[in-house]
């Protein structure tokens, strides 16, 4: 059934939760109050034991599954995995997906008004960390009166978020699923993020981050940042299959416009990203990713960090992911094994690169679905 014909009750509506008490942050500052916008799919059972927390990635948001309106062109970003009868089965689980702090998609972030000045925070929004995200998500958990999560699940940065949960709140999470993750970023990962940040910060319209006040948007910089990021999410193979060296006009134009299809695709990706994402948020998210390092709190000993984990865990990697490779995922798995954590690991053969975690790959959905079905509520 196409979503245009769904009964109104089956459309999803985001909810905003306000938190009046301050949130202390890793950077030493605090947010006096904050909002978190979230969506839920599936019913919470009477025992309140079937709640699943979905953690979104770098540019993700709370709209993980389903549709908001009959006119929506696309469903939520993880609709391949979340829904009735899907790997994360909403007939069995009550799925909660919040938008995280620092984002520009509804929760408190650089676009929000700073109560101290009455103006948007902009670049003065504190640099939050994955640990801060976990603390904020724990506040949401409390507000929703969910005693524990049956599972905390995420891909990419979301998977790191899930790992931090398992370490920081071992008693409040029964299962953790970490997909396409690394225990921390490599120098190469950080380098890519730095180029993205430089692209934004060197844009003449950036105005040191106070571009809202100038009625400007550093759209060229943000577009470049996204184009660069997007390349790292795909694989050479998948780009080759999708575009090859296909030309836009079946001949070389001997100019600097987009001659090849891949060029116009990247420009399109960059431009559409500018319409939905804020540059200060992007800077913040990349920094948060760079700072992620759960072992740092344990004398750089990842095994010691993993000894706190009580959740049964599933780690998945993808063969063509060169952003967070199987080797990086195995680093985490090895530490979890040394810490005698209950963990399973599989490398999924997939050609879509890092973005594979969003794709409907039967082998991937099979293992994830099997793990979810094995959860006792």
């Amino acid at each position, binding site marked *: 059934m196409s979503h245009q014909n769904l009964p109104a009750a089956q459309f999803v509506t985001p909810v905003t939760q306000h938190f009046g008490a301050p949130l202390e942050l890793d950077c030493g500052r605090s947010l006096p109050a904050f909002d978190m916008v979230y969506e839920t799919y599936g019913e919470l059972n009477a025992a309140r034991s079937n709640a699943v927390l979905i953690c979104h990635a770098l540019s993700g948001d709370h709209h993980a599954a389903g549709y908001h309106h009959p006119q929506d062109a696309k469903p939520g970003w993880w609709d391949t995995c979340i829904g009735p009868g899907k790997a994360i089965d909403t007939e069995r689980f009550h799925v909660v997906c919040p938008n995280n702090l620092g984002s520009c998609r509804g929760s408190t972030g650089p676009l929000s008004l700073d109560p101290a000045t009455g103006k948007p925070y902009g670049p003065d929004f504190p640099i939050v960390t994955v640990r801060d995200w976990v603390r904020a998500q724990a506040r949401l958990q409390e507000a929703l009166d969910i005693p524990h999560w049956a599972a905390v699940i995420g891909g990419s940065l979301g998977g790191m978020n899930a790992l931090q949960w398992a370490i920081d709140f071992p008693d409040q999470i029964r299962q953790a699923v970490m997909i396409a993750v690394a225990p921390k970023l490599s120098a190469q990962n950080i380098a890519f993020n730095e180029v993205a940040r430089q692209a934004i910060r060197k844009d003449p319209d950036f105005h040191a981050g106070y571009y809202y006040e100038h009625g400007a948007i550093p759209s060229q910089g943000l577009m470049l940042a996204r184009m660069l990021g997007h390349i790292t999410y795909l694989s050479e193979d998948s780009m080759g299959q999708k575009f090859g060296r296909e030309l836009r006009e079946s001949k070389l134009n001997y100019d600097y416009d987009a001659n090849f299809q891949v060029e116009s695709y990247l420009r399109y990706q960059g431009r559409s990203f500018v319409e939905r994402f804020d540059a200060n948020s992007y800077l913040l998210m990349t920094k948060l990713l760079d700072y992620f390092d759960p072992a740092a709190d344990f004398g750089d000993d990842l095994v010691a960090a993993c000894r706190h984990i009580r959740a049964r865990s599933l780690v998945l990697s993808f063969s063509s992911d060169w952003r967070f490779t199987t080797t990086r995922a195995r680093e985490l798995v090895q530490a979890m094994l040394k810490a005698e954590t209950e963990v399973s*690991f599989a490398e999924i053969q997939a050609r879509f690169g890092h973005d594979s975690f969003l794709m409907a790959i039967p*082998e991937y959905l099979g*293992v994830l679905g099997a793990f979810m079905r094995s959860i006792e509520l």
Partner: protein
Amino acid sequence: MNSPEFRWVNDWIAPHTRVLDLGCGDGSFLSHLRRSREVRGYGLEISTDNIRQCVAAGINVIQTDLDQGLSTFETDAFDTVFLLQTLQAVRYPEALLKEMLRVGREGIITFPNFGYWRNRLQLCLGGRMPVTASLPAEWYETENIHLCTISDFENLCHRNAFRIVTRVILDAHNHPSMGGRMWPGLLGATALYRIQRR
């Protein structure tokens, strides 16, 4: 359990111990051990389809190519390491046995005895590689690349100073017969060993 040899192996496992199952398949042996002995541990498997079945059964499983060794695991991480009907399919049997006894205090190995009389008969009289109940595939499509006899295996243990703690020889019906005790190399279809470091 569908394979009767598992019953023997089961009896060798102390409750609440830490185990590692190399080539754990769909995890049914670990599931069984977890119920009967409340063991903790992991299975290692190369096939994603088997991994899916392990995960569905709540078995911890790590995708691993045994030919790459067990470097993921620390020395003495386990009480018992299993290698059930898998030895003959690995690229480096000797290295893997050494690795087993590095990461585990004890190794339990089962394999089809290539010296079983039916195999000998098919090879000697028929002049063909044996195809039997325990070795059902033709030579060109078998996964078994390192078949050995009971003597071969014991020689390898001797060479590496592995101590054979227990040996059970089963006939084609998975029974320990009188004949198997007297002429194991000839009448044993399946061999079960518990080995330790000296």
